[in-house]
């Protein structure tokens, strides 16, 4: 049963270094994606432990198995056949293979001592083109998650679940393109993705007392920080340019107020310097979102529609996003449909009437 044991705490991997650099243009050549994730203890100690810390000491934290992880990780037959024979020392056609795989997954017992454990999740791709495709998909999954409203716990939780499902599905295809540099640590990372006592986003650490660890993807976090700095620089330039065009500034201001859930009547009553302050704060806190608003080619028309809704000339229903005229005539199922309606040359006359109403 020795090979069934999983105990890789603090293991130093001696992974073979890349033979092909990240900048090699030969897409058919092998590629080594060097990466790691850090599993950290939350150290959210109970009052009982804090009161008795001198005797109890720091907690010995162990990542164990879980039903979801055991089921999901054993569900992709081809992936299991690709990875586990080397780990268990038996071939995939051995009659006990499935039982041994299950036993391995159910025996996970991985100690995180004191601080962090770094897991080597590097992957050796047979061809660089596969790495690029996987990376593209991974980036798309992560950017989709980043769009979730971080102030809304429910939405964030759903978005995270979706992200994990998609990431796991993506990871489970990688066996076709190569091999993990350190199989045990890679599988441990895959387990941590599915283990509910490991937080995949630090936003959840204090929301669930069962969470004992969190994953830090340092490479991705560094990349995000870099991106944020670039977005902030662009946002600063955009803000300066925006201040020179009153119509567009007001349109962006209105959109910002909506995203902040401000009272719109109060928002419209603010003077110019207060409006500048609101937009500037938004630039600082959400530079990427501000840039999207700035680059939205329909931002002025959207503001016109929102103003018409505020004045009661158009009506947005409480239960969906449908927009109608005050007399109930249908304009569009959502703001994008309404934009299409306003831009339709057939509605030019009505559009002018609506715009004139806003001038008074």
């Amino acid at each position: 049963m020795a090979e069934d044991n999983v105990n890789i705490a603090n293991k130093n991997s001696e992974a073979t270094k890349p033979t092909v650099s990240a900048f090699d243009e030969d897409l058919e050549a092998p590629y080594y994606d060097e990466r790691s994730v850090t599993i950290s203890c939350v150290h959210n100690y109970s009052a009982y432990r804090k009161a008795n810390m001198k005797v109890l000491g720091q907690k010995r934290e162990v990542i164990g198995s879980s039903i979801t992880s055991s089921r999901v990780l054993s569900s992709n037959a081809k992936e299991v056949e690709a990875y586990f024979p080397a780990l268990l020392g038996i071939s995939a056609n051995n009659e006990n293979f499935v039982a041994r795989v299950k036993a391995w997954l159910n025996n996970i017992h991985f100690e995180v001592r004191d601080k962090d454990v770094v897991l080597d999740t590097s992957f050796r791709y047979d061809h660089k083109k596969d790495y690029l495709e996987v990376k593209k998909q991974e980036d798309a999954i992560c950017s989709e998650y980043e769009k979730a409203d971080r102030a809304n716990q429910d939405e964030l939780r759903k978005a995270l679940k979706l992200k994990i499902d998609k990431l796991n599905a993506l990871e489970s295809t990688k066996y076709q393109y190569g091999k993990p540099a350190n199989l045990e640590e890679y599988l441990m990372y895959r387990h941590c993705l599915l283990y509910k006592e490991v937080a995949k986003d630090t936003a959840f650490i204090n929301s669930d007392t069962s969470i004992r660890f969190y994953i830090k993807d340092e490479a991705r976090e560094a990349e995000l920080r870099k991106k944020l700095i670039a977005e902030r620089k662009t946002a600063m330039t955009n803000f300066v340019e925006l201040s020179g065009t009153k119509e567009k500034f007001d349109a962006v201001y209105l959109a910002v107020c909506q995203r902040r859930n401000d009272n719109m009547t109060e928002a419209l009553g603010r003077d110019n310097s207060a409006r500048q302050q609101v937009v500037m704060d938004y630039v600082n806190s959400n530079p990427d979102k501000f840039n999207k608003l700035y680059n939205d080619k329909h931002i002025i028309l959207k503001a016109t529609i929102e103003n018409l809704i505020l004045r009661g000339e158009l009506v947005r229903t409480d239960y969906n996003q449908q927009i109608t005229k005050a007399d109930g005539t249908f304009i569009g199922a959502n703001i994008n449909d309404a934009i299409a309606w306003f831009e339709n040359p057939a509605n030019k006359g009505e559009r002018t009437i609506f715009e004139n109403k806003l001038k008074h």
Partner: protein
Amino acid sequence: MYKLREVSRGRYDDRGYSNEESIANLMLSKPAEINRTLTYTFGMDDDRFPLSFLTEGQGASGVKSIETETWTWKTMGRLHFNDYVVYAPSSGYPGQGGAMFDIEFATHWLIEQWSLVAPDGVTQVRIMADLGEGTHGGYLYRVKLWNPDPNAYVSTEHLATGKYWTMTAPTIPASYSKGNRSNSMGPGKMTSQLEYHRYSKEIAGNISNTIVEYEFKTNSGGTTNLWINEEMRQFEIQKRIAEEERLWIANYNLNENGEITMLDRDNGKPIRSTAGMMEICRESNYATYGETLTLNLIERTIGDVLDKDTDTGTMEVVLGCGKGFWQDFDGAMRDAATNNGFVDALGDKMIEEFDGGLSYGKYFRRYKTIDNHIITLKHLAFLDKGSLADNDKSNGNIHPKSGLPMTSHQAFLLDFSTYEGTRNVRMVRLKGQEHIIGILKGLTPIPASWGSVPNNAISTEIDMSRYEVKSTIGLQVDNNRKMMQLKCVL
């Protein structure tokens, strides 16, 4: 389960249940003892009160009355010889050519002149100098490799943060050596606190004398058709279930600054919460398992915990668990037996003749480790049927294979041993506040079970009467090293 028998409905004015009367009188005169008796009775009839039964139900040895709300106790662990690296060279060839190099360890436990063995169990160095406090929060030691081979060096793998090195005897030259020092351990001090409970029963009208169509069983084994007796029986059971579950789920709430943030809304006074058994177990040792439990995991978790201390005195360590864990444990033993080829032996036990037919089913409830530790399972019904289990069922938090609530698929390793004549687990009460009963008498007649109060005196103008119970409760675990929670997670 008891049956209900329909009798006639009418007024009931006889206070002649002597057993009922005597219990009631005792309730007022010696409340603490009666409380124990009831716990024992309920514990024997119904296994919903295991912790109350194993502490309060065991008489004086299982209960400790104290003078203050908080209390402390001393503990002494096993002397250890190792420490872990907090900082060391991470590259190069440390120690090569007889060069000395520095390692920073977490504490000042290691001693100059003593030697250290690396995590590989082979590489050895001698501590040449104790350099005092290091720059990474630990203590710096200058060491030299014992291996005389000039090419030998210490692998940086052994010097990674968190790696433990263990100390062996001090070595010195034949003459002119200086002395070193020795480590000693003092006892550590643990602390916990009591919590207060209050239960009230209000009655009005003539409920005390109303008899109903059904006959109820009393705690003393008789029957009654006086409704209030049944209502008071339910009150007592409800109280005991609440107290039992509280002993499990309470979380200590006095913070490190000595503050309690939970304040009563009426009077702003702090509300204390004790450390319950789940918290004590979880904080001592905690592990999870998945779809199936394996013998390997049992040995690595429970076996490892049992191995922590030297057994002294009468060991009484049980693995209290829900039915779900019981099934998982049985499955683990069965798989191990099958994998080892004991199929026939298992089959012989599983299938037996019964009443001319066949009976299938015998289940594993014990496991003996290679070093003779015995793990015995004890069913904790509250994990299957208690309020936490009911909550799991209602919220759909169900085990996908067994259909049982997830609370059922967990186990607590409980050390009920007696060390030096003292039970390891005891219930703690505040002296004079162990279990106080008071009656607020109005015009509503007082039932016999509440005890005797002056007939004509009333203490409220409202036409009602109240039965008030105040109690204190806390849990004392002297040695928590063998306590553990092992639970299945989705």
